[in-house]
C-alpha cells in the first residue's frame, strides 16, 4: 500500500508543472555543480602539485650554502585540497593557501586568491554540498509544501481516507516520496562525483551521502508534517520557506556574528606583540650580548671541556640557534594553543546553534567529512609548524655539527648537496574521520535529535489527523 502511495506521489510531483520544473532544476544544478566543482578541484590539484614541484626545484637547485642561510631561505608549504574538497571545499576560500616556513619565526597562512572578488564571498558557492544542503532541501520544500494541504483543499484527502488509507500510512508515503526526491539528488551529486573524480575515498563519500540523506529525511518529515498540520497551502508555503530561509541563510550568519561578538579574537598586532614579548625573554640567536646566550655558551664550553669557542669542535652558532628555536617553539605552543582554544570556543558557540538548525549541523559535519573544516585547517597549521621545526632543527644541527677544523684550526663546513637533497617536501596527512567527528559531537547529537524530533512530529501529526477524523 505504502509503495503504491509513494509511486503515486512521485507521479503527482512529476505530473505537476511546478514539480517537474523544480525537480528538473535540482537535477541540473546538482550535475552542473558537481561537474564545475570537479573541474575546479582538478585544476587546483594540478596547480598545487606544480607549486610543490617549483618549491622543491628551488630547494634542490640552490647551490650548497650554509645550513643557516638555508634556514632563512626557507621552504614554501602549499596547502593541498584533499580528495573530498570537490564535494565540499568548506573553509578553503577563506583560509590562506601558502605558509612560508623559515628559521626564527612561524608565519601565518597567506594568499586567498578569491579576495580579488571578495564582494561575492558573502554568498554561498554553488558547490555540491551547498546544492544538497540549500537547494535540494528547497526542492523538497517547493515540491512538498502542498503535498497534504492541497489534498485537503481539493477534498482528495477525505476520498483517500474513505478508501481505507490511514493517516499514518498516507503521511509516511508522502514523506518517503519527498525524501526520495532528496535522495535522488544526493545520488546524482555523489554519482557524478564518482564518475568525474580521479581519486575516491569510498568511506568518506558513503558518510557524506548518509549525512545528506539524513538531512533530507528531516526536511521531508517537517515539510510533510507542516503541510498536514495547516489548513491552507499558502500558510504551509510561508512557514516552510521561512524555516528554509532561517536555517539555510540567516541562522548560520547570526551564529557566526554571535560567536564573534560574544568572544572576540585578539587583533593580529596584539597577538604578535604578546608572542614577541615572550620570545624576547628567550635567546636571540643573533645577539652576542644576550646573557642567556652567554650562559649557554659557558655550558657548551664546559661540556666539551674547552676554554674558548675557537677550541670547540662544533659551531656554537648552530647550537645557540637551535636553543632559540626550542624556546620559540614553546612560545608558539603557548600562544597558538591559546588561540586555538579561542577559535574552538567560538566554534563551540556556532555548534550550539546546530541544536536549533539542522542545516548548520549538516554543514559542519559535511566539512569535517570532507576534511575542509576548522579542525582540518588547524591540523594543517600544526603539521606545517611541525615540518618547520624539523626542517630548522636538522639545519641547525648541520650548522653546529657539519663542520671540521682545518689545519689552521679554523672551522670549515662539510655540508654537501646530498644533505639538502635528503630533505623531504611537506606532506599533509589528513585527519581520520573519527578524529574529525570527535570534535563535532554536539552537531551529531543535534542532527540525531532533529531526526528523532521530525519523525515524532510527523507521527503526532498523523495521530492528530486520525483524532480529527474521528471527531
Amino acid at each position, binding site marked *: 500500500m505504502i509503495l503504491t502511495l509513494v509511486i503515486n506521489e512521485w507521479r503527482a510531483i512529476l505530473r505537476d508543472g*511546478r514539480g517537474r520544473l523544480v525537480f528538473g532544476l535540482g537535477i541540473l544544478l546538482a550535475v552542473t555543480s558537481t561537474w*564545475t*566543482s570537479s573541474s*575546479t578541484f582538478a585544476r*587546483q590539484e594540478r596547480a598545487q602539485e606544480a*607549486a610543490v614541484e*617549483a618549491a622543491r626545484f*628551488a630547494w634542490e637547485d640552490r647551490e650548497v650554502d650554509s645550513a643557516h642561510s638555508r634556514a632563512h*631561505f626557507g621552504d*614554501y608549504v*602549499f596547502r593541498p585540497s584533499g580528495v573530498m574538497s570537490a564535494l565540499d*571545499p568548506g573553509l578553503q*576560500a*577563506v583560509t590562506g*593557501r*601558502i605558509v*612560508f616556513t623559515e628559521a626564527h619565526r612561524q608565519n601565518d597562512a*597567506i594568499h586567498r*586568491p*578569491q*579576495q*580579488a*572578488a*571578495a*564582494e*561575492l*564571498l*558573502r*554568498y*554561498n*558557492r*554553488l*558547490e555540491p554540498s551547498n546544492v544538497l544542503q*540549500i*537547494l535540494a532541501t528547497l526542492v523538497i520544500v*517547493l515540491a512538498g509544501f*502542498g503535498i497534504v494541504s492541497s489534498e485537503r483543499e481539493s477534498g482528495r484527502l477525505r476520498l483517500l481516507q474513505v478508501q481505507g488509507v490511514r493517516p499514518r500510512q498516507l503521511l509516511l508515503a508522502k514523506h518517503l516520496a519527498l525524501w526520495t526526491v532528496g535522495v535522488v539528488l544526493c545520488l546524482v551529486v555523489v554519482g557524478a562525483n564518482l564518475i568525474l573524480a580521479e581519486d575516491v575515498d569510498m568511506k568518506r563519500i558513503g558518510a557524506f551521502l548518509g549525512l545528506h540523506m539524513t538531512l533530507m529525511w528531516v526536511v521531508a518529515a517537517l515539510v510533510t508534517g507542516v503541510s498536514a498540520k495547516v489548513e491552507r*497551502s*499558502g500558510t*504551509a*508555503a*510561508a512557514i516552510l*520557506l521561512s524555516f528554509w530561509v532561517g536555517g539555510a541563510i540567516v541562522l548560520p550568519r547570526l551564529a*557566526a*556574528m554571535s560567536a*564573534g*561578538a560574544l568572544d*572576540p579574537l*585578539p*587583533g*593580529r*598586532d596584539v*597577538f604578535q606583540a604578546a608572542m614577541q614579548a615572550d620570545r624576547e625573554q628567550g635567546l636571540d640567536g643573533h645577539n652576542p650580548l644576550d646573557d642567556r646566550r652567554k650562559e649557554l655558551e659557558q655550558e657548551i664550553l664546559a661540556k666539551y671541556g674547552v676554554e674558548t669557542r675557537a677550541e670547540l669542535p662544533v659551531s656554537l652558532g648552530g647550537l645557540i640557534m637551535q636553543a632559540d628555536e626550542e624556546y620559540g617553539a614553546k612560545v608558539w605552543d603557548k600562544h597558538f594553543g591559546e*588561540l586555538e582554544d579561542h*577559535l574552538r570556543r*567560538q*566554534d563551540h558557540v*556556532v555548534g550550539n546553534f546546530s541544536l536549533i538548525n539542522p542545516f548548520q549541523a549538516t554543514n559542519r559535519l559535511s566539512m569535517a567529512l570532507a576534511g575542509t*573544516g*576548522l579542525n582540518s585547517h588547524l591540523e594543517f597549521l600544526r603539521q606545517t609548524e611541525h615540518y618547520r621545526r624539523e626542517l630548522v632543527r636538522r639545519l641547525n644541527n648541520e650548522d653546529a655539527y657539519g663542520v671540521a677544523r682545518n689545519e689552521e684550526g679554523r672551522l670549515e663546513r662539510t655540508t654537501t648537496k646530498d644533505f639538502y637533497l635528503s630533505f623531504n617536501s611537506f606532506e599533509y596527512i589528513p585527519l581520520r574521520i573519527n578524529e574529525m567527528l570527535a570534535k563535532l559531537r554536539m552537531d551529531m547529537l543535534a542532527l540525531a535529535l532533529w531526526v528523532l524530533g521530525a519523525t515524532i512530529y510527523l507521527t503526532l501529526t498523523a495521530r492528530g489527523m486520525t483524532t480529527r477524523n474521528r471527531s
Partner: protein
Amino acid sequence: MIRIALGLELRNLARSPLRVLVLALVVAVGGVVTIQGQNDVDRWNRAIEEGVIAQNNALAEARAWFSEGENRQQDRPWIDLRQAHWQDIFAATRIVRAPEPLAGIAFASAEAGAITMRLNRFADPLVAQGDKIENPALAAAGGLDLVTVLSLLIPLLVLALGVEVGGYERASGLLPLVQVQTGRDRSWIWARCFAIGLIVATVALVLCTLATAAAGAGPQDALPLYALALVYVGIWTAILAVVGIVSRNPSHGAVGLGSAWIFLCVLVPSLGVERSAALAADDFALDLTIEARDSRNDAYEMNEDELYALVYDRWPALRDKEPRPRRAGILHARDGVRIVGLESRLRQRVDQGQAHRQLVESMLFASPALVFTHALERLAGRSPASAQAFREAAVDAVANRTELVIGANWSQKALGNDDFETLVKSSPRVAPMPIAAWHKDLLVLVLWLLLLAGLANLLPRRMSQS
C-alpha cells in the same frame, strides 16, 4: 487609492503577530549589526592607534640617541644610525588605511586586506595580512552586517508583508469587484505594493539613519546610502507587483516571491562565487613566493652594470648620485632591484585580478542583490578596490623611500638627525582611497527598477484564479 491601500496594509500588519514579529526581527537584527559594525570600526581605529604608538616609540628611541649624541643602543653595538640601512629601519613609519565613515555597515565583508603597514625597503605590501585574526569557520558563514540585512532581509520583509497581494484578491474574487468599482484593477495591486514598499522603505531608512548616526557620517555619505536603499526597496516592490499581477492565489504568490528571492539572492550570486573559485583554482601565488625569492637572489648574481642600469631606469635622478667606487653602493642598489621586482609583481597581480573584476562587473547585471552589495561595500570602503588602493599606495611609498635610502647611502657620508627626519617625513601617513563609485551601481539598480516596473505593467493581467 494609495491612502486606502496603506491603511489596509497597516491594519493587516497590526492584525498579524507573525508579520509584526518579522518586522521587529529585521529592525532588531539591524540594530544589533549596527552596534557591531561600530565596534568593528572602533577596533579598526584602535589597531591604527596601536600601530602609531609602536611607530612613535621606535622614532623616539632613535631621536633619543641623536639627542644624546649616540648612534646606537648600548647593548647593540652593530646598530649605527649614521648608516642609511639603520636609518631606514628606525625611521620606518606606518601607512594606514583609514576607515571610511560608513565602514561599519559592511564589517562582515570578506575583504581582509591590511589596514596598517610598517614601511621600510624590506616591506612587502603584496603579502601583508589584515589586522584581524579571523576564525575561518565564522568567515565562511558569510557574515551578518547591515549590508546583509539590507540586501537579504529587507526583500524578505517585502515578501512577508506582501505575500498575499494579488493572489488574495483573485482567490476571494475581489479583483473583478475592484475593476467594476474603479475600472483599474492593476492600479489597486500597484497601490498595495506601493503601500508595502513604503512600510519597508521606512524600516530601511530607519536602519540607515541608525547606521549613519552611529558612525557620525555626514550627508555626503548618508545620501548615497539612502538613495541606494530606496531604489533597492523599489526593486523588490516592483517584483512584488510582477508576482501580484500574475499570482493565482496566496500560495502561488508565496512560491513566486520565494523563488524570485532565491533566484536573485542565492542562486545567481552562488554562480558568481563558483566562477570566482574556478578563476582562483590555479593561483598558488608563485609570483609572490618562489619567483619573488628567486628574483631577490638573482640581484646577487647581476653584475654592477646590470644592477645600476635597472636602478637608473626606475629612478633616473639617482644617476647623479652614483657612488665612487660603484662597488660601495652595490648593497643598496640590490635593494632598488628588489623594489623594481615588487612593483613588477604588483602590476602582474593587478592584471591577474582583471578576470575577477570583470566577473564581478558582469555579475552586477545579473542580480540587484549583487549590485546593491557591491555599491554598499564600496561606500563602506571595504571592497577589493580599497584593499588594492592601499597596496598600491604602500608599494609606492616603499619605492619612494627606497630612492631616498639609496641616495643617502650613495652619498657616502655619515647621516645625521636631519636625514633621519627627512626619511620620517618622506612617506604618507594615510593611503589615499578611491572615491566610492556608487553612481554606476545606482544606475544599474534604477535600470532594474524600470525594467521590473515595465514588466509589471506589460504582463497580461489575470482577473481570476483560472
